[in-house]
């Protein structure tokens, strides 16, 4: 008798590993833009995160007595790790990245049984846990124009060099929010955007090009059928719709949809995070609901809430709803659409 015993005996040439690999590849344009515009420190973070993820994965697999090699090489932990690294400030101390990654892999992923079984998006759990725990570190983004050599960046990450004040230049979103809050209505968005150096043509010098990189990668994933269009489109729709309404109502106090679309984690979220198949909705209508509400909540948190960006929390909040969404949006099956 042969090794297999179940039909079908023909299998398409696909695998989880290849899926994850393609996601990693799709992240490359964004990473390239990141390195080009913000600095190579992100590469160090990516390496740290990857190593931490593999370590956490290996330890948990060992403890749970699951095949090590098979799951270490499936690439899912690396995808999570990269997304964490990209979501964290590039000059975070190394241990922050490690804590985040381990939290994601150990608690959010393996306590639920590992690959495919986690109800929450591990990367976003890591982000949320860290911004709640270390709000100061998590909102210290390098000021643009901060020219640091790779060695200096490395030293800061490793904790060898002191963290410098200039590093706490806020991200466009954070800066906008703080400015508006301080101004108490005296400041308006257009002048802000025009005057501060963080803000570029439409969303912040540099950051928008990173977003464009993510957009390209995402489109490629869609073309490769790794992701479907529903969630990203609905996410972007939810975000821009709210942004557009408020912007139209009061352009002095609310930034344009374009700004929101290209700042913060919007596009990384739209193409790589809300699309996480494991923790996201799976039905056609479910994906639309999931994406739309995630986008809307992200906007509300970012504009009215306590955190500079809302994508992570929005995704987690929608993760919570996934079982119910899926349950109530089951598509009609063959022959049940219009029962004659």
């Amino acid at each position, binding site marked *: 008798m042969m090794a297999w015993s179940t039909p079908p005996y023909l299998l398409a040439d696909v695998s989880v590993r290849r899926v994850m690999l393609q996601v990693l590849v799709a992240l490359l344009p964004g990473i390239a833009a990141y390195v080009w515009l913000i600095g190579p420190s992100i590469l160090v973070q990516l390496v740290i995160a990857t190593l931490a993820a593999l370590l956490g994965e290996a330890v948990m697999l060992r403890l749970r007595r*699951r*095949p090590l090699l098979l799951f270490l090489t499936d690439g899912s932990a690396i995808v999570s790790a990269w997304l964490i690294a990209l979501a964290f400030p590039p000059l975070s101390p190394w241990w922050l990245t490690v*804590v985040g990654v381990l939290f994601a892999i150990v*608690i959010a992923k393996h*306590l639920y*049984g590992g690959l495919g079984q986690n109800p929450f998006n591990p990367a976003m759990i890591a982000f949320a*846990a860290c911004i*709640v*725990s*270390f709000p100061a*570190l998590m909102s210290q983004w390098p000021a643009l124009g901060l020219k640091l050599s790779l060695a200096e960046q490395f030293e800061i990450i490793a904790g060898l060099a002191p963290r410098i004040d200039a590093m706490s230049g806020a991200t466009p979103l954070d800066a906008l929010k703080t400015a508006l809050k301080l101004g108490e209505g005296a400041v308006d968005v257009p002048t802000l955007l025009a005057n501060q150096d963080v803000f570029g043509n439409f969303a912040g010098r540099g950051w928008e090009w990173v977003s464009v990189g993510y957009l390209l990668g995402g489109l490629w994933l869609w073309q490769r059928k790794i992701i479907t269009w529903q969630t990203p489109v609905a996410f972007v729709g939810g975000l821009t719709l709210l942004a557009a309404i408020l912007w139209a109502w009061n352009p002095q106090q609310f930034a344009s949809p374009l700004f929101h679309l290209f700042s913060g984690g919007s596009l990384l979220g739209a193409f790589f995070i809300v699309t996480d198949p494991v923790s996201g909705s799976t039905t056609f209508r479910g994906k639309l609901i999931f994406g739309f509400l995630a986008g809307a909540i992200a906007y509300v948190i970012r504009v009215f809430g306590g955190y500079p960006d809302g994508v992570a929390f929005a995704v987690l909040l929608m993760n919570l709803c996934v079982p119910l969404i899926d349950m109530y949006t089951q598509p009609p099956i063959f022959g049940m659409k219009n029962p004659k």
Partner: protein
Amino acid sequence: MISRDELSEIRDNGLWKQNSSLVQILGLCPLLAVTTNVVNGVMLSLATIIVMAIANVAVASLRNLIPHEIRIPVFILIVAALVTVVDLLFNAQLHELYLVLGIFIPLIVTNCIVLARVEAFANKNPPLQAAFDGVFMGVGMLWTLALLGGLRELIGGGTLFSGIDMVFPGLQPLQLLPADYPGLLLAMLPPGAFILLGCLIAWKNWVEARAAARHSGQRSLPTPPAPLTDHA
């Protein structure tokens, strides 16, 4: 009166086997809400122990006088009265702590474990047993609260016994981890409380499974709700 066996059974149940927090999963609100440090947890537990022990005795003594239809309101009445007394005492003697514990002292009334013990034990047993049950259930709660509080404090800020000065004005908290430990704030917040309690429950399951594997004659491996045979 009470036999040694009975006593040790009540003790084991209260402290470990039927531990309110780890096994019965009752009385969670104070368990999670006030355990930002050891001191809060211990003090609230002490209040609960007092209430539970006296309520148990009261109910066990009066159990034959209470008509079935209104037993719940009467039990609650008894518990609520005791809680209010404790509340007044805390207010008078440990005012600062009283402010910290906030509504969780009056909420001992609705602490499920109190009513659960009254219903399930005191209502069916004589006063002495009921008293022991109240005390040991309470101590079972105390050590879990203290443990959880300690963990949260330590992970969250690297200290232990913070707030001790509210109870013993002369004492100072311990700083266990180096002063530049950044502190995983999450542990002090509700999510950390939930997650750490989950880990404690898992720890207890693990201890039990190991004990069961060592002693023969008892199987306590929880039967898997879902198969995991696919990854041998």
